[in-house]
């Protein structure tokens, strides 16, 4: 690709590149990475226990406490498990729904269906979470629907958190999967069928590989948004405590400890992003 030099020499191209890339990267570095670095560095500071003022003496007490106190490990593992469960649930729901929207529904219906999936993104997150609180309540909608069947809803607790988070982030998973499926040429599917592959075989060998990057792209949202959430948990989580809650409860009193705790989701997500980038997820976002 030498097109870069089309309007001038290599020097001009470099200049143009710098002009194009400079502002966004400068913004990102100054406004975001700088802040993040300051935060993570402050994990090595400590707090005056009474005044809650940050004392800038270098030490690793917070990190040690984080690694040696069992309760933080429990919380981290629970949060990770919930994020994975939400992602799997969303993938399971999004695949058939997106497939139906993109390949089964008649083209006339595709747009309305997509609008229908995207509209809830505009409704307030808090209000949706509260609506679920009402639905899942002891005397709520879910229980009044299930009780004739002799069943009982999940109530407030970890299952409710998984359910509501999966609900909240579902459009983020459907959208990329839909886009990938819609782009899949009919010819490819027909070729697979002509070669004698059955429906399942075609799904497994042609459709799934095509949507895999999109699934990973969607999972970036479902996984990382779940990993950091602390408001939904407060609303429907019963007594469940997640990493977000632990950070939120420390942040005003003990910023260094909160910073140390923040390092956990940061490390998890950076690892996750690095992993899914190999699968081409970032290009399919």
């Amino acid at each position, binding site marked *: 690709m030498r097109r870069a030099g089309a309007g001038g020499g290599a020097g001009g191209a470099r200049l143009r590149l710098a002009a194009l890339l400079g502002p966004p990267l400068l913004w990102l*570095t*100054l406004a975001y*990475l*700088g802040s*993040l*670095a*300051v935060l993570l*560095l402050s994990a090595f500071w400590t*707090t*005056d*226990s*009474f*005044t*809650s*003022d940050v004392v*800038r003496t270098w030490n690793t007490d917070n990190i040690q406490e984080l690694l040696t*106190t069992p*309760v933080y490990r*429990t*919380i981290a593992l629970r949060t990770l498990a919930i994020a994975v469960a939400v992602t799997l649930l969303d993938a399971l729901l999004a695949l058939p729904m997106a497939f139906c929207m993109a390949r089964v529904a008649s083209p006339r219906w595709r747009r309305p269906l997509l609008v229908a999936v995207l509209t809830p993104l505009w409704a307030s997150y808090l209000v949706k979470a*509260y609506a679920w*609180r*009402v639905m899942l*309540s*002891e*005397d*709520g909608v879910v229980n009044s629907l299930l009780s004739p069947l002799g069943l009982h809803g999940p*109530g*407030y607790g970890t299952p409710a958190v998984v359910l509501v988070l999966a609900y909240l982030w579902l459009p983020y998973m459907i959208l990329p999967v839909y886009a990938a499926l819609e782009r899949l040429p009919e010819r490819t599917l027909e070729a697979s069928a002509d070669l004698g592959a059955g429906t399942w075989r075609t799904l497994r060998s042609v459709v799934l590989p095509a949507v895999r990057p999109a699934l990973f792209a969607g999972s970036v949202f479902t996984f990382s948004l779940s990993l950091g959430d602390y408001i939904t948990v*407060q*609303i429907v*989580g*019963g*007594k469940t*405590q997640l990493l977000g*809650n*632990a950070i939120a*409860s*420390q*942040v*005003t*009193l*003990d910023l260094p400890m909160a910073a140390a705790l923040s390092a956990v989701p940061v490390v998890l997500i950076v690892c996750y992003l690095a992993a899914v980038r190999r699968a081409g997820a970032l290009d399919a976002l």
Partner: protein
Amino acid sequence: MRKRTTSAWRSAAAVCALLLTAAGCGSDDDGKAAHAPGKLGKGEGKVNIIAWAGYAEDGSNDPQADWVHPFEKKTGCKVDTKTAGTSDEMVSLMKTGQYDTVSASGDATLRLIASGDAAPVNTKLVPNYKDIFPALKQQPFNSKDGRMYGIPHGRGANLLMYRTDKVKPAPDSWRAVFDDAAAHNGRVTAYDSPIYIADAALYLMRAKPSLGIKNPYALDKKQLDAAVTLLKKQHKAIGEYWSDYQKEITAFKGGDSVIGTTWQVIANLTQAEKAPVKAVLPKEGATGWSDTWMVSAKAEHPNCAYKWLDWIVSPKVNAQVAEYFGEAPANRKACAETSDPNHCAVFHADDEKYFQRVHFWTTPIKQCLDGRKNTTCTDYAQWTRAWTEVKG
């Protein structure tokens, strides 16, 4: 690829080194000894307030509740309010130095005093201070060395609420949510804050005298451990912890919670929703909160802040706030101004016998608040970590 990430990190590190230098040069505050003004000057035309939701209403949420606009009209001080959800949030907002005054509860006040973020208040400059209930003056949670660090605003107890149709016989002791909590497995609720450890300590004062707890906010390591053990046991029976009105009202109304701590106003609202609930002050007494309007040591608009302090505890306004928020007013003349003549009776505003049984929230500190000299107590940071552990 790994190399590139490293270089990105290196540049990030360079930037943050710059930031650190900037920070190190700029803000080494040594102004810990703030002074109260001797007299007031003209208003600065503006005041920035941190308040609990419902404390500084300008009618934008409920046209009936507006005591900000009359204040602005009277004093020419324009009010900007930031609503804080928790005491911790109030402390961190005060630390920004952008606010002039805050309605701090007792679990925040001592921290603000100690860090030098709050300045002593010259009560002579607040004419309405003379009508404040004497029991609220010079308390450990709003004063230090005999100097007031704010103007008392209102108070309330953390009561025991239960569903009359699900909890029988009617409880009269905190035992119902501690040792007997299993009877309502999964339906018990508790306030979601480290300060709730004091509720367990209060119960242990009576239930386990051998621990020697004299003040629920002065716990040594052993006493804190005992409270944490009790709370961990309670955790098994907890359905959810609550921190806002809405959550608790819906939980009691829907039957998700049947017993737990509450505020008087929540009990009233839940009853107004026709839920069969009742709130009692158990025989052990209760913890409670008393809010204090404090002035920032870095206040940019101290004159307007003092005007606000006097305004908010003036009889009429204090009555308005107390009714809107649902608490006992601090100004005794406010009781004559409430639109519901029974308000002060319902909230026990002038019932000192009632409030003698209430241990108001106080920030736990290393130096034992009960006067013990031979031991160090656990501080709020330790309570916070203990609370994380209780919730598991």
